[in-house]
Structure formats: C-alpha cells, structure tokens
C-alpha cells in the first residue's frame, strides 16, 4: 500500500483526513445543490475509496501483513517478497517530495471547505451584509447592463467541478507506482499517478533506466490527460521491434476526453498489443459492471 495509508505516519494521516473531509463536504454540497451526475460521481469516487481501504487494512480474511511503500530510505525501494518468488519489486511512488504532498492536499480544497462552511452559516442565520436596509430601489446611475449583471451573478458557478477535479487529482496523487521485474519482463503499474509523482520518477536516473525496459504497461487513470506524461511515452517507452503490451481500463463518458485520443494514438506507435476494456466485443455494454469478469490472457516468458 502507498505510504499515505500508513496509520502510523502523521503526515499520511493528515493528508487522508484532509482528503476525506473535502470529499465528504463536496459530496454533500453537490447533492444539495443538485449538481450534474458526472461531477457527483467524481466526488463519490474519492469517498468510496474509504470502504475499499477498510477492507484492505483489515485484510480480506484475517490478518494480512501490510507494507507501506515506497520505504523512506531510497536504497530499500527495490526488494523481493517471499510471497512472490522470482519477482523483484521496484516501488517508485508516491513521492515524499514537498510539492507532491502539497498536491495531495490541494489548496482549492481548503478554500472550498471554508466556502461551504460560510454557506451553511448563512443558511442557518441569514442576514444582510449590513445592519438595516440599504437597498437602493430602482437603478442608480452607472448601473450594469443585463449581460454584465449575468457575469456578476454567475461568479462562483462551476467552482464545484474545479474542486472535484482537484480532489480527484489529489486522491490519485497517492497512487502506488510499482514495477514488477521477473525474468526478462518488466511490468509497470503506475496506478493513477499524477504529474508530481511522475516528475520525481522521471528525474531519477535509476528509475528511467528501468522504465526503458518496460514490457507491460497498465495505462493510468483510464487513459486521461495527466496520468501518462508525454516525455515518458515519447522518450522512454520501448518501440518496435521491442515487445510491449499495454492495457487500459477505460470508457468514454459524457464530454470527458477520456481516454485521451493523442495518448492512444501515441501508444499505437509503440505497440499493436493494446487492450482496451471498452473495446472488447461483448465484454461491456456501456457501463462497468462490478464483478463482471473480464479476462485477457497472455503468456509471460521468463
């Protein structure tokens, strides 16, 4: 599990609390104002992780031994585990870098929480900004045109989607990034890691050397814009004749540009072996079904 889940780490606790607080407030507020379904889902996505994490923490059946990755000590980030013989694990992220941690607790969230609290205070105790009635009846000289009023009246609209996206990015920023090495195979699982984490990985010579050997890539965050940086695809990801598998769990939804077309086109120049969950005939009918089984088999030669 990522270090941000470590109950013994105070920084991790702070980040998790900030994220849940924001997720909760955002979800309540969005429901209250009747926001668009896709935005509510985005907020709910951050919430639902809680339940999943509970299971992970408690173990599916009994006491699982948990490790929080990567270790703070840079030298211990490549290791083996008894349960996976023959596999070397490289834990590349999430980063401990200050700027990455800042993104895990986005400032937009803090200001939004305050707005929500102020809004609640207003509803409980509605009062005009000034004692007494200072309203001017009619239109004063220099009044605004209808279009201008519309701009002023609309201030703050759409803030929720910005905050929802920031929260989504923050939650994804805690993604565990692993590379599993077995024989000649290098399997890269970047989770939904965002720019900050990627940036730290791409700045590390040892990690970039490993990334160049990737034989299997799980494309992060449904193939969205910011989960797979262009320098990684352009400069590090192997090209033919080297072999590469790529897998992306994705579905087009509403007006979201997911998966990102440019990314899919770029990946196609690296390999023909791209498995897309939304393009397997008969596998999915428009929506993901929990527990629906979806298997693509391939063989890994050691």
């Amino acid at each position, binding site marked *: 599990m990522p270090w941000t889940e470590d109950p013994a780490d105070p920084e991790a606790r702070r980040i998790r609390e900030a994220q849940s607080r924001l997720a909760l407030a955002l979800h309540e507020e969005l429901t209250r104002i009747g926001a668009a379904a896709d935005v509510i889902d985005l907020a709910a996505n951050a919430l639902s992780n809680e339940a999943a994490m509970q299971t992970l923490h408690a173990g599916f059946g009994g006491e699982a031994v948990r490790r929080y990755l990567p270790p703070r000590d840079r030298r211990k980030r490549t290791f083996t585990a008894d349960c996976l013989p023959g596999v070397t694990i490289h834990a590349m992220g999430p980063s401990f870098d200050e700027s990455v941690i800042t993104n895990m607790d*986005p400032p937009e969230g803090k200001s939004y929480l305050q707005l929500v609290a102020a809004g609640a205070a207003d509803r409980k105790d509605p009062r005009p900004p000034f004692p007494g009635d200072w309203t001017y009846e009619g239109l004063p000289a220099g009044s605004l045109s209808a279009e201008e009023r519309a701009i002023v009246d609309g*201030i703050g609209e759409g803030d929720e989607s910005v905050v929802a996206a920031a929260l989504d990015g923050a939650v*994804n920023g805690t993604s565990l990034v692993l590379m599993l090495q077995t024989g000649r195979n290098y399997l890269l699982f970047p989770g939904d890691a965002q720019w900050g984490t990627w940036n730290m990985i791409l700045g590390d010579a040892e990690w970039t050397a490993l990334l160049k050997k990737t034989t299997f890539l799980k494309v992060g965050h449904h193939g969205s814009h910011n989960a797979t940086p262009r320098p990684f695809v352009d400069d590090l990801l192997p090209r033919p004749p080297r072999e590469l598998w790529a897998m992306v769990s994705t579905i087009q939804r509403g007006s979201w540009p997911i998966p990102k077309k440019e990314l899919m086109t770029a990946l196609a120049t690296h390999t023909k072996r791209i498995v897309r969950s939304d393009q397997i005939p008969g596998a999915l009918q428009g929506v993901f079904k929990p527990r629906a089984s979806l298997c693509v088999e391939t063989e890994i030669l050691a």
Partner: protein
Amino acid sequence: MKRIESRYVLAPPARRPLKIFASDPMQGRAAGNLTTIAVGNEKLTPGPAGSRIEVVDYDGSVPGGRYYQPVDLDDPAILMQGGLEPTESDPRFHQQMVYAVAMKVLENFERALGRSIYFREGRRLRLLPHAFRGPNAFYDRRLLAVLFGYFRADLANPGRNLPGQNVFTCLSHDIIAHEVTHALVDRLRWNFLEFSNPDVPAFHEGFADIVAIFQHFTFPDILYDYIRATRTDLRSPTPLVQLAQQFGYATGRGRALRSAVDLDTGGALRARARGDDGQPAAERLYQSVMEPHERGSILVAAVFDGFFSVYQRRIADLLRIATGGTGMLPAGDLHPDLITRVAAEASRTAQSILTMCIRAFEYLPPVDVTFGDYLRALVTADYELNPSDDVGQRASMIEAFRSRGIYPEGVWSLAEESLLWENAPPEVPRFPVALLGDLSSVAPGAFSQASKERESRPAVETAARAAPDLSDLTDDVLRPYAESNAGLLGLEKGRPVDVQGFHSVFRVGQDGRLVIEIVTQFVQQEKSETLAMGGLPLRGGSTVIAGADGTVRYVISKPLSRERLERQREWVDLVDSTNPAAAYMPEDRRGERMVATGFAAIHRSIVR
C-alpha cells in the same frame, strides 16, 4: 479684474480628503489605522463616480441582484467631516474607501509615468465593493471592473474577528490596491493577460503586491508607529510588510495573506526551498515555484530587499548622529525626533522605489514578459533618469534579484552596463512622429491606439471613431514605419504589425533636465498553433523608445522565433499536466483553456 474673480479665488481645492482604514477593520481603531488620505479633487456624482473611476454597488449574491445606496461625496454634510467615518456597517463608507484607495493607486502610476492614464475608449474602471459572496476579489477585463467579495469569517479559527462575522474584502487597503493594480497593468500591457510563460501571471501578481505594500509607506501615522515598534527594522513582521491581515486570519490561516519578506518569515515557501544539493534556498524558488502568487512573491521579496538596503544606507547617518557616532541603538524607546526623521527617509525611499518600479513599465517588451526583462527595464528606466545612482538604488536592486536566481537572458554579466537594454543601432531611421507637430495635438498619455489589424475587439472601433486623427496616425504613419523597418525593429518582415500603444512621456531628471520620450509598442502574432496551445497565439513584438528629436534610442524586442514557440509549447504542456481539471475538460473547450479574461481563476486559489 476684481480680485474676487481671479483664479486664485475661484479655483476649486486641489485635493479631497477622505477617511479610510489604513490596513483593514481587524486592526480596529488602533492608532494610525483610521487615517485620512487626500486624492485629486474632481467633480463626483453619487457612486462615487469620477472621470476615470466609478463605484457601482451591485450585489449579485442575492436572487435578482440588488443595488445599495450610493454615497454622494459632494454632499456638504460629508464634505464637512472630510468623508464618512470608517465603519463596517455602512456601505457608503465602503464605497468611499474603495474609491479613495483606487484613486491613490492611479495617482501613483501617473506620477511615476509622467502622464495621465485613461482607460480604453474613455471608459471608467468600475469598482463593485459587494459583488458576490466568497473570500475572493478580482479584476475582470470584460466588465472593466474590480469585483470584491464578502464572506463569513471562519467559525473555528477567525483570528481577531468575530466568528462568522461578515468580512469585506473591499475594506482591505491591500486587496483594493492589489486589484486596481491588475486593472492598470492590463491597461498598460494588454498582452500580459496571456500567460505565455510562468513569469507573466506571476509578474501581474507580484507587481500588484509591490504597489500595495509600498503604498503602506505613504501613511505617515502607521509608518511612525511601526518604526517605533520595530526600532527601525522594517523587515520585522508588522502590518507594514504584510498583506491583507484580516483576510488571512478570517480564512482560518492564522496569519496574513502574504508578506514582503519571503525567506525571513518562513512558511510554505521556505519549506519548499529546502534543498540538499547545496544550492542556496532562494535560488531554488525561482526555478521550482510556479503558482502565480507564490512566484510573484519572489519578485516582491527581491524588490523589498532592494528597498531595505537603500533605506538602511539612507538612515545610517541619522543613527550615528543619534548614538554619538556608534550607530548602535541603545535599549529603550527611540527619540521621537529620530523616529520622525527615519520615517521620512523610509517614506521617501519607498516612494522612490515604487516610482522606479512603475516607471520600468515603459521599458518592458509588449509581450511575454519575464522577471529578467523586468530587472533590465528597472535598471534602464532608472539609468535614463538618474545616471549616477548616488544612493545605490540600482545596485541594491540588481543584488536582490541576483540573490534570488533571477537572471535576464542574453546578458554577459550582472554589471549595470550589461543589464541596460542595448541601444538601438544607428541605422534605425528616425521615428516618423515629430514631437511638437503631431504629438502636441495629443494630450500626453490620453492616447493609446490599436490598429484595425487586431482581432475582434469592439473597443477598438469605438475608439477609432472617437478619435479619427489618432487612428490615421496609426494607420498612415506608425504601422508603415514599423513594416518597412521590420528587421531593424526586431520584427518579422512581411508580417502585419499591430500598433498597441503610443504615447509621449515627460519627466524631470536628476539634474533638472526635461526627459522626453515617445514610447510605441508594435506587436505581431503567429496563430498557426493557437488552438493547440489552448488559445495562446505566439506573439512577438517590440517596444520602441524614441527621444524628443525622433532618434530611436531603444528597441526592446521579443522577436517571433521557433525557439520561443517551442518554449511556449513546453509551458502549455506543463500547465496541462499539472492541472487536474485538464483530465475532464471537454474537447471543444480545450482550444481556449489558456485564455484568461481576468483573474477569477487565478484568484480562486487566493487562499493558498
């Protein structure tokens, strides 16, 4: 003529005194916080509405909208007491305060630039003191307005505010000064609202903070108090060097919004600057901090540093006189006369630095500004007026920028002479406008004109109709001059040129001579990748500065180039990949994702 009919008797008073909160209501009625400032006297209608600034008290947060009673500052009852008394509970005082502070900022710009500033097409800058609910305030170009929000103070951690009380951003001197500066910068450099590199939005933010902070030093009462309290060390954290205290506390931060002294007061920036590679902390900041307000505060800190060294140098003799030659202040209170003299020096230095900072505008390229360009503009502008730099103002500024890792591109060293913009080559033909001919018909500065080449901007046509002579000058003289001398003026041959600003400047130099300059901005654009870069075209351009005799003295140029295109593309990529909202932005809106119409979006994260 009867004496009673003479101008001496009939002339209206030059200044209008108005009361304001020197910082904000949280400082309460503490000495110095309630102060009176004098602004230029003009006929005002209720609002108040003057010739260039107009207060419109519209509140969009109530369903259907609502106007509040406008104040009539020419009402004898109000005139008699020098403006309404400061209070949070009367919206008319709020209107008075935003008007007064905004006028003060405008006057500071005019004094430094040596010309009057009018907004485009003769419109007025509008101030909406209670536009919306929310802890924010911003300038909006579409409305040509500054919109102030109001909000409930944090319930759990309100600082010295009442939990849940209404906090008005329009009662913070700093927030007003900051936002009005945005409007003025937008007036002087139209293209700086195109965030074509990380320094552009940061420059907008930092510059606005510089104006707000240095304006503190023009209030004699608080200056006196804080010099006494800090025993002349103006870097100590006092409201003098901190911005928007009430806002900071009311939003639950437990401190002021920002400070002029970055590394000394610690905080987030300092934490970010921690490095293990031996590089000095301050230098890392410029390379790593991208958020506009934070990055802007690097600029603020550099300028403040420069100010502080000059100030120290200027008061050194006073301290020696006061201490029998040692310069070491004894324990206990300072002598009131010493405080008065030190305050006078602080105020003079601050005014001189603020003037220097604003004056530099004339020497900035018209597009794609960087902090390095700004340093060169500062040095050049000051050199032109005060060649000898007696108090070391330029040297201090250069050193302060250097210690923050801000280096201009393409200079050989940080010596003053290599920071000066290069002189224009002698083969540049004389500027085609004879000063006393064409320009004398134009009130200095009343004019800034765009050519028809410009993309759709209804403003332009209106202005052209209003002043046909000026657009003739642009079309028949200035543009042809730029196009036929494109190469020499740092422009691309064969590409249309847009004239984006043209005015004359009259200033009195150090030695009493009159410095006259004609400043013109020429801009070109390459639109082929505008859509891919989220609505940002690649712009190139030159600011051409000519002397009174038409000799071209400086050509300050950002030419269109492949390299600049590449860099702008990389920057847009970086913005895209760090913006979590980019993942969910519909395809049809991606083509305008970098377009800013104001500062609503940047300031949404004002609570950083």
